[in-house]
């Protein structure tokens, strides 16, 4: 066994997997990764099951150190600068940390969450079939709470396999698609206002829900309905008219009218939207939403087909592009002069 020590970590970082299912009837929410595609991509790079437990890393900087042996990991999700002992590494690739080496991650750039999958998975005690952290319910393993510096994750020793990269289809930057309902008839003209307006995600959002800032969405008959069930992506509108999109740690039931629901195929992309960035919703029909959901699950199922060995050429180009995106001047000719942009990239977390 090796272990991965959390040397530094910010808030909103925790062990997550595909979540725990089957106990919503007892009030237990599924939890699980906010961006399931990114979780599955990271896992597929190190040969894990798509929804094996990995580290969900919030927008802030983080560092991970291998101890008692080498650890092989893979990074996917929001773009961010990454290096191992000063050597730039790219997102959407696997990498091996020799015993004592540290992987350092910068701030998320243009997204919110990254996923660090560990070859062989994370050792823990599953509850309801999941290691996912749900701090309110005291669930999660090895720690039933968000990660803190000093935490240690037990894992398998690195296999020494060739490092790999994954080619993911480009993410849409179009509107977030929703299916209207289940209580859209509680809203009149406000439905058009909801669909025609630009929204921003409030900084007070968390894994339970993303609060939206925009025009006031008025109810026709008041904001109390008799409580009923919620799903990931339910958009409820409380009394102040500012919608809340319920996310993976949502309450399983709620008493505010729900105007619409984010479709499965767009939920991870929505989860990645940084606080403060403007976006819009677009209503689609059930047929389209379900066709998109089927495409999404099919893509997720076939992610291993998109994984291939890294050649040195790939690695350099990736790292170069990442560095350039961050606005640092680098020489494409002399890779030896590349520098990891310093943590001033905090400003890039828009």
């Amino acid at each position, binding site marked *: 066994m090796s272990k991965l020590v959390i040397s530094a970590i910010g808030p909103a970082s925790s062990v997550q997997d595909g979540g725990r299912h089957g106990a919503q009837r007892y009030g237990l929410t599924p939890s699980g990764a906010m961006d399931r595609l990114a979780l599955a991509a990271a896992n597929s790079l190190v040969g894990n099951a798509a929804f094996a437990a990995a580290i969900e890393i919030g927008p802030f900087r983080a560092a991970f150190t291998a101890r008692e042996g080498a650890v092989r990991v893979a990074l996917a999700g929001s773009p961010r600068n990454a290096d191992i002992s000063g050597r730039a590494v790219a997102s959407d690739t696997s990498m091996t940390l020799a015993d004592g080496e540290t992987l350092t991650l910068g701030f998320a750039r243009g997204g919110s969450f990254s996923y660090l999958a560990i070859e062989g998975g994370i050792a823990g005690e599953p509850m309801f079939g999941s290691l996912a952290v749900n701090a309110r*319910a*005291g669930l999660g393993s090895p720690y039933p709470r968000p990660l803190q510096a000093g935490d240690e994750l037990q894992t398998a020793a690195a296999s020494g396999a060739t490092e790999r990269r994954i080619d993911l289809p480009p993410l849409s930057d179009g509107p977030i698609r929703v299916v209207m309902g289940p*209580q859209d008839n509680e809203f009149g003209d406000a439905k058009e206002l909801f669909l025609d307006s630009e929204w921003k995600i409030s900084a007070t959002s968390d894994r339970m829900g993303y609060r939206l800032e925009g025009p006031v969405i008025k109810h026709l008959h008041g904001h109390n309905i008799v409580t009923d069930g*919620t799903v990931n992506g339910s958009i409820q509108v409380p009394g102040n008219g500012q919608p809340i999109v319920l996310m993976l740690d949502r309450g399983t039931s709620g008493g505010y009218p729900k105007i619409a629901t984010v479709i499965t195929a767009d939920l991870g992309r929505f989860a990645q939207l940084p606080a403060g960035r403007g976006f819009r919703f677009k209503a689609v029909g059930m047929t389209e939403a379900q066709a*998109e959901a089927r495409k999404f699950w099919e893509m997720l199922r076939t992610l291993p087909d998109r994984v291939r060995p890294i050649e040195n050429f790939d690695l350099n180009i990736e790292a170069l592009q990442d560095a350039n995106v961050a606005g640092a001047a680098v020489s494409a000719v002399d890779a030896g002069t590349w520098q990891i942009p310093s943590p001033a990239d905090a400003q890039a977390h828009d």
Partner: protein
Amino acid sequence: MAATLSPPRLLPSGDSAITVEFSRNIDDVANQRVLALDRTLARETIAGVTEAVPTYRSLLVHYDPVQIDFGTLGEKLLTLAQMPAPPAATTRRWRIPVVYGGEHGIDLEDVAKALNMTPDDIVARHVAGDYRVAMIGFTPGWSYLSGLPDSLRMPRRLNPRLLTPAGTISIGGVQAGVQCLAAPSGWHLLGRTAVRTYQLRRDPTFLLEPGDAVTFTAVDAKTFAEQDQAAERGEIVAELIAS
């Protein structure tokens, strides 16, 4: 009681869940039909259905759109809703000990004043109630009960509390509740129970099921403290008085 029974409405909850709505209000007939459809669905397995969540007035059915689409599942659910439901296997009846008032139920005095009764009257009426678990939701083990005596109905607090203690026994509107974990709440806090409706590493993890009958019994603070220690060790503390 609803005057008429209409077929349920099918409401889309995104691309992977359907809300089967029997009523827009809290009503016992609707809740019985929700629980009946829940039992039917447990027996007549539909490929692609992953989870069903009963609430007061609707059954939320989670499903996998790769295996079944909205239209096909909706038709099947409407058919099942018309079938005679299998009777509930047994009605379990629990007696739940509560320490009322004081630091354990900080709203008891105010509720008594608002309803022109003494705190003892409130406790007597709350204990006399014959309740049923209509749904469990919001946070693990939070059990929403139907059957609150009419004389104890009062509007929820204008300012919900951001945190109320684990084990809180409360009332709000026509509803009564047994709360397991500390959570925000806009209901009136009458007392606390040592009973954990949700406890990890205990068998069963979840004590109550939708449809279970519940009554309350008053205990003193010392008994509560003893029961709380026993519950912490994994004892159930609630009494199963019929099943």
